[in-house]
């Protein structure tokens, strides 16, 4: 049981990290559909750097940098050149899938070092809870910290409120003297960094081998989760755990020998995503939490 809960937590970390990043990006009014692609970049950069340097922490760093770099391409196109955000985001994922396949080619068949578990003294000795919560690797702690950091930041810091303001009404933000484009660049880069780290987590903690498209749709689930969580960081954690649980269900089923086709179980996380989105869109029609400027171009002073 303990192990099951730990596995669920670990499985949900990539979607949680990527989802948190996308949440910040979307709060500033940018819809980046390239999460899947950014995660792949993070994954391949992390794996490659670990194979070269041998240190998994370097892997996190490279994963984050790769995420930022690829998100910069997106920012340049959508914020500066004002291309369509949806098309650019989709393009980014298609591009990144192929690019990482190419870069990852030499890594096939090699095993990277995993992130070490850090046990927090005293806390990790608490029965049950200690094992689940306080003897994990650094990115788990970081992801949990990030939830509260973003929640607090949006409520109580000026930069957080400015990001929300830019996503809510960019013309007003401009008229009181903020650079809408700069805020969006920064938020998108933050989203890229988180997605890169979420992607990095897959080879660094879950499956230490490279395989093409190894994120397997986690980026899309993260995107759906942001909507599911109605742009609230704490709800995002709940959502990520539910999706983590559903993903793990297929392994449990296999281990217990349930008589369910494996294809059906493989399908579950994506089916749950569609269901969650459908359910939420009913609610959203009357109770719209989405940033008002989400996906809209800021043209500047006409």
């Amino acid at each position: 049981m303990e192990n099951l809960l730990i596995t669920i937590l670990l499985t949900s970390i990539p979607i949680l990290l990527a989802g948190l990043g996308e949440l910040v990006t979307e709060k500033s009014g940018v819809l980046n559909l390239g999460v899947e692609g950014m995660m792949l970049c993070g994954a391949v950069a992390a794996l490659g750097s670990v194979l070269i340097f041998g240190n998994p922490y370097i892997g996190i760093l490279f994963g984050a940098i790769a995420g930022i770099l690829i998100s910069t391409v997106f920012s340049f196109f959508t914020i500066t050149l004002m291309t369509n955000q949806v098309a650019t985001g989709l393009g980014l994922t298609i591009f990144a899938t192929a690019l990482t396949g190419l870069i990852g080619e030499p890594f096939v068949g090699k095993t990277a070092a995993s992130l070490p578990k850090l046990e927090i003294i005293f806390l990790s000795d608490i029965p049950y809870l200690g094992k689940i919560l306080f003897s994990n690797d650094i990115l788990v702690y970081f992801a949990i910290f990030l939830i509260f950091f973003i929640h607090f930041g949006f409520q109580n810091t000026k930069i957080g409120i400015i990001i929300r303001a830019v996503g809510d009404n960019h013309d007003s933000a401009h008229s009181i003297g903020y650079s809408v484009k700069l805020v969006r660049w920064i938020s998108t880069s933050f989203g890229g960094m988180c997605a890169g780290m979420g992607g990095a987590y897959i080879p660094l903690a879950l499956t230490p081998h490279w395989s093409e498209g190894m994120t397997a749709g986690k980026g899309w689930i993260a995107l759906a989760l942001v909507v599911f969580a109605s742009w609230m960081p704490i709800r995002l954690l709940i959502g990520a755990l539910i999706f983590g649980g559903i993903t793990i269900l297929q392994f449990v089923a296999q281990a217990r020998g349930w008589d369910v086709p494996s294809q059906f179980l493989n399908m579950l996380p994506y089916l749950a995503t569609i269901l969650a989105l459908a359910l939420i869109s009913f609610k959203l029609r009357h109770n719209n939490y989405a940033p008002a400027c989400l996906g809209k171009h800021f043209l500047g002073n006409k």
Partner: protein
Amino acid sequence: MTNNFDATTFIEVKNLSKTFDQFLANDSISIDIKKGEIHALLGENGAGKSTLVKCLYGVVKPTDGQILINGKHVTINSPREARSYGIGMVFQHFSLFPALTVSENILISLDEKITKKHLEDKISITAKQWGLPIEPTKKVLDLSVGEQQRVEIIRCLLQNPKLLIMDEPTSVLSPQEINQLFKVLRKLANSGCSILYISHKLNEIKQIASKVTILRSGKVISSTSTSKISTTSMAEKMIGKKVKKITKISKNSFLNSPPAISINNLNRKKLSQFGTELKKISFNVKYGEILGIAGVAGNGQVELMNALSGETLGDPDEIIFEDKKIGNTNIKFRRSLGLEFVPEERNGHATVPEITLTENTFLTFYNTYSKNNNFLDDILLSSNMSSNDTISIINDNDVRCPYSNPLADQLSGGNLQKFIVGRSLKANPKVLIISQPTWGVDIGAASEIRSKLLLLAKAGKAIILISQDLDEIYEISNNICVINNGSLSKPKITSKISAKDIGILMGIN
């Protein structure tokens, strides 16, 4: 040159010009504002008022000219710099963030470092001090328009402004709210803060300002004390010609005429979070009557218009036209009976902005263009008929086009509105339902539109006029009712209802 500096002047603008591409928006404007003075800036749309204040607030950079504050030359490169000189601005279209709370809205426009909790206390204190009640932890989207304006004013007050710029502040307020606002402005002026008050409402300027500067086509036409100029001559200076007087039809000539349309217990659920639910709306209009529906924006006007036009449907007997129950019929059917609708939104609702006037006319009348039911006529665009109609609409209504058959969004607001109203008249309506016909339209065009409406009523047609502009409602309607939070008051004869009564019906004390 600062040697002739007058210590009572706060800001002085000298020969300020601003060009956009080829267009000269401000042509060598000079204006000076004394400390503690309420200075009105009057002009039609496009006269250059907004450009001038945007230069003062650092949103736009002037092409030429100087700005002096307390006798010193300054360049204002950003709103932040403007605020550092003590200039605050309340925008016409509020620059607020609906999803943020009042205190968050204010926090991000303050340049000093302050915690949210501390700021909330400060807001409450300032609100009390100036008589502008507000709840700092409420989200802006839950506030009324008047409250939103208070937020904007408090935001400026917290920065201890020396000059407060107000852009058309009363266009969204009820009469009572206007009085409250004026009290605050006078108090502010007495405390030494200058106010630059932008408006095109002449009576208000007379009432609140001590000095008025009139702009036309980017130039200063006149700058005098308000006690020395009448509203008529202000209007003439503003539009550059004599204003046509509108003659109202003899009051009760329609009393014996048959009812045209009656609305019975009309209900509509709200369509979005920001919408208004319509509750048991009932009224009727006779042929020859103009019924004015007053109300502060956002109280159900849009929903009512949609219900009347058939964009939202309900039970058949909610709307009865002559003796037909049409509450569940679509727009096309209602128009075929002789109802015409002019919605509030000119660009995108009443017209398609990106296509030409001829094409817009075609979209309106294509039904009548293919009466012989010839298959080819039905599918082929008969451009002759629509362009003939367009030309006659343009000529009959004095629509001024920048070139022949322009795109709809190439017309100025006033000219586009004249075109839209003209197009509805072309359909020979029995009942015209028109919403905010002169919103954002200059005085000249507005008076032409109003006289067209009066002529239509004189010809025995019924008109339902939904408007936020009380002056307009008083000017042309026979009966007035007020829409407030989705409910409609009983119609009263225009001469028997005062602006104060209307304010009370608007639900604001």
